[in-house]
């Protein structure tokens, strides 16, 4: 058995113990305080750009679509019941098809968001490369009336992650969105 280096330990001496009770008392005070102050769900916000309304007939929506087409460089994420597109200056491109999944006994529509992540990052890179003098921040989420809110938030979240941090929302009847798509080319 190795001899103690310090020389303090001698045969027959008792071992000193650290009194842990004050530490326990301190912990018992701190832990309830921290439990009360802890926030396990953090609420954050997405700042939206100014939205534009639509009228009952959808005529307003068409006008809005036309106006948004005037802003040629601003890309759009177009969400319909069946597909998801990205609209750019050179037209709209198909990204993915909708998926139907069951949530709490209800069938809901969702999308494979990884496809959008890849596509929107690619669009941002292409735009930045082609127009280096412009900083691209704005993007429009153009969607049909029935699209679920969580799908919109997902699309916005992906757009923000790709660099488009000023999202706007446009909602239009399905017919208007479809006609805009047809006019958009490939």
């Amino acid at each position, binding site marked *: 058995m190795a001899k103690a280096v310090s020389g303090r330990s001698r045969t027959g001496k008792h071992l000193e113990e650290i009194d842990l009770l004050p530490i326990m008392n301190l912990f018992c005070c701190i832990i309830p305080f*921290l439990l009360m102050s802890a926030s396990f*769900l*953090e*609420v954050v*916000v997405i700042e939206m750009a100014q939205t534009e309304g639509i009228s009952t007939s959808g005529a307003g929506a068409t006008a809005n679509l036309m106006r948004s087409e005037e802003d040629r460089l601003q890309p759009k994420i177009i969400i319909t019941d069946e597909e998801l597109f990205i609209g750019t200056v050179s037209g709209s491109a198909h990204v993915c098809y909708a998926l139907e999944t069951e949530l709490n006994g209800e069938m809901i529509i969702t999308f494979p968001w990884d496809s959008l992540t890849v596509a929107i990052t690619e669009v941002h890179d292409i735009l930045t490369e082609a127009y280096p003098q412009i900083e691209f921040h704005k993007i429009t989420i153009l969607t*049909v009336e029935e699209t*679920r809110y969580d799908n*919109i938030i997902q699309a*916005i979240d992906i757009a923000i*992650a790709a660099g488009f941090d000023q999202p706007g929302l446009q909602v239009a009847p399905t017919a208007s969105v479809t006609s805009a798509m047809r006019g958009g080319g490939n």
Partner: protein
Amino acid sequence: MSMPSKRHVPLLLGSGKSVAVSHGKDKKVTLSLTSMIDMFTILLVFLLKSYSTDGQLVTVSDQLILPKARVEKKVELKLDIQVNNSFIVVDGDPIVAVTDDLLNSGNSIPELVTRLRDHMEYSRLTRGTLNEEDTKINIQGDVGIPAILLQRVMASCSEAGYVGQNLAVIKEEPAEGGEV
């Protein structure tokens, strides 16, 4: 002073030593606090990580489920609109019931615009003047609301003068490995 029975072994925690004395023999039972200290330390680190000095600025209604997103912008204390598939609630007051008509027609929602204008007017009267921060509003939407309802609420906010609209979401931590 009588000694305790065998069944009641007192823990002499207050005496400065974590020792229990059993009756009869002079046998001392030591309560090991080390493992408990270890556990408390882990708990303390976890709670310190979750500690928030801001507190809960936004009260999320139990009538709605907020969507999740990875954005970082902190929520500020503003006027709250809560929207679910049954009601539109402003600052705790139910304003409009969500009906099929509401989902089929028009732009802004007149009752909502009136309520928001009243609130803005009240703010103007109490503060004297309004700055840009006073024209911001937080919208808490349930994951299941349709886009048309959200759009109508946002259009109503714009019409009432609330030009800065923030959508409240639950912060989602990014996946391990920095996956986007």
